[in-house]
């Protein structure tokens, strides 16, 4: 042991000190120890030592501070926890995921479950019969077409200055009974459940040139539509000024129909005084949506 002692620096008697000096030497030593350890005195049950300052051996007896957290309990969506030592908590929702694309979906109040990703191209669909209320399904392929196409390939005489109903005794297709090849063959009638917007497209071929004005008109329920439909009066949705080199006219118009409404096309020309025959015509009537 070094003298003075390490690390406290208390002075011990030297080997060369006279025996008669020992009482005084121990008095010096004892007092130094007592002075340094003075702050260890006192205190009460339960108190702990705390540093009073940065000075060596400066202590205070103080009541220990109670920790704010005495335990960690796992709640909903969390697992693990504990009341001592190192505590680990785990996000159960994260660990429920097993593969890319997995979803976590609710199964009830404060409950969830993994929903595995569907196959390529599938879409997420609500389904109350499923535990999660969801399922991946394969979407239906393309919207189903609704509409009709009718035509004529026999002559129809069109007198000058007269609105003439374009009759269409033949069909190309008709999904929902819009058209008849027997009665009222110029009509496209809206069936039950199919009210909404339709696009009517018409092509008319004359056997000779239309040298003066000609137009196509939309009639609904037997009356010409108003200018609000196409911007032109008297149901016109296509107007042609006339040309020695043109013998056909085509146009289209959309309109909102109710069930049982019917659409018709009337044709008009102001050409030769003798009637001009239409030798071919085709009308398509396509459902656009409600």
């Amino acid at each position, binding site marked *: 042991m070094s003298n003075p002692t390490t690390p406290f620096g208390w002075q011990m008697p030297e080997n060369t000190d006279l025996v008669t000096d020992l009482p005084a030497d121990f008095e010096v030593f004892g007092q130094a120890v007592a002075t340094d350890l003075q702050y260890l005195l006192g205190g009460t049950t339960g108190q702990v030592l705390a540093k009073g300052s940065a000075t060596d051996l400066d202590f205070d007896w103080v009541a220990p501070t109670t920790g704010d957290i005495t335990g960690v309990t796992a709640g909903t969506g969390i697992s693990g926890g504990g009341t001592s030592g190192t505590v680990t908590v785990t996000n159960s929702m994260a660990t429920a995921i097993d593969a890319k694309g997995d979803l976590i979906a609710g199964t009830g109040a404060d409950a969830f479950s993994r929903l595995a990703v569907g196959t390529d191209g599938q879409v997420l669909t609500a389904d109350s019969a499923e535990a999660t209320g969801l399922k991946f399904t394969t979407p239906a392929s393309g919207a189903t077409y609704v509409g009709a196409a009718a035509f004529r390939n026999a002559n*129809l005489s069109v*007198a*000058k*200055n*007269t*609105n*003439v*109903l*374009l*009759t269409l005794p033949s069909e190309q297709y008709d999904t929902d009974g819009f058209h008849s090849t027997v009665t009222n063959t*110029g009509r496209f009638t809206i069936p039950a459940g199919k009210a909404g917007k339709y696009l009517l497209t018409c092509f008319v071929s004359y056997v000779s040139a239309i040298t*003066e*004005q000609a137009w196509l008109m939309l009639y609904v329920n037997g009356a010409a539509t108003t200018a609000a439909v196409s911007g032109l009066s*008297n149901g016109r949705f296509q107007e042609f000024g006339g040309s020695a080199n043109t013998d056909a006219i085509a146009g289209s118009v959309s309109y909102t129909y109710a069930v049982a409404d019917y659409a018709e096309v*009337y044709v*008009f020309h*102001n050409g030769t*005084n003798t*009637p001009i025959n239409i030798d071919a015509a085709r009308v398509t009537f396509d459902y656009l949506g409600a």
Partner: protein
Amino acid sequence: MELFEQIIEAIPEIKATDCFPKIGIFLQDDSDGQGAFIAKWEYTKPIPDGFILGKPTGKKTK
């Protein structure tokens, strides 16, 4: 003789080159075999004698 020709004959001031709808005369043929008729008359003069408005007439009655 077509209906428009009959009207021109009854009202000589109307020319064959006139576009009837633009002068207020609307003729219609429903392609039902009954022929043309006067669907609407907004011309500055009244419908001539012998013609009537609406289907299936329009033919001269005298």
